[in-house]
């Protein structure tokens, strides 16, 4: 079933990509610049008010890295920074556009009530 978690990336007719809320938050955090896990948690908290659990964060990171939407940079001491890839930026843009379209339509309906 299609939902706002499934977004079409690239040309029309391309396969949709399923992206969960924690993955979206990680991509949105990395869109500002490379970060390690600790900095991502703080940034996501300030960005959305959501506090991700460490397990949830690394679950999202592992999925995004596996699909090539983020990549690891050389580690700094014991911390491992990550950065968003061009594919990740494309996915984030598509996801946010979908959400924006959905929220605009929903708010319009609420306004009509």
């Amino acid at each position: 079933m299609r939902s706002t978690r499934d977004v079409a990336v690239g040309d029309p007719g391309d396969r949709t990509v399923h992206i969960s809320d924690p993955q979206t938050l990680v991509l949105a955090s990395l869109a500002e610049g490379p970060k390690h896990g600790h900095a991502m948690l703080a940034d996501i908290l300030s960005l959305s008010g959501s506090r991700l659990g460490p397990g949830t964060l690394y679950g999202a990171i592992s999925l995004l890295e596996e699909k090539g939407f983020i990549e690891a940079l050389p580690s700094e001491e014991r911390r491992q920074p990550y950065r968003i890839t061009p594919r990740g930026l494309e996915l984030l843009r598509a996801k946010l556009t979908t959400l924006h379209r959905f929220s605009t339509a929903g708010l319009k309906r609420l306004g009509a009530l």
Partner: protein
Amino acid sequence: MSPRLARALVRLYPQRWRGRYGAELELLLVEEGEGFGAVTDILRSALIQHLRALRFGSSGIVFGIGPTGALLLLYIVAGRMLWWGWRMFLPGEATPFVRLEGGAVFYFGIDRLLYYSAPVLIAWGVCCLAGKRHPGRWWPAIGMLPAALIAALIHVYAERVGQVERVRFGLVVPTQWSELQVVLLHAAGILFLSAIPYLARGIFAMEGRGRSLEPLR
């Protein structure tokens, strides 16, 4: 969170995942993981990673629970055939397990063959698939263990309730040592028949290796 608890929690993840992200997660847990919520978050996340490892390692499903699933499917087909045959050839009989004549002998013969040979047919199918996907590996055969045990324990029951023919399956759990011996012997027999292609492949592989050691002429 204490480093000791953090290390213990990270050990719950699949080994491969832990090798890649374990150190980072452990550090983050020590710095950020506070309270019961962090522990439940790790438990949930570790479970998801184990499920993902299963899903992406589709071979685990195919060779793990695949044989048992296929066996149950074949038993359903055999049970359905028995029910049809009973209605078609033996409409007045209280049970289909009676002396047969004519076409019924052939029909019920095929059904019986399917029922008894199902585990071995599946095992040979597994062997063919394993030979293509994981040549030289023995672990795809592990899924045959529960299938062989089910095959040794399963019994088919047929009873007429009024005008309705009923065919059902049940697992007979042995209650005595002698019964358990029969079940284990039955399962071992199925596993031995299942292993024939593996053994044959092994023998041919050994033969091939032997030939390759001969000097070229």
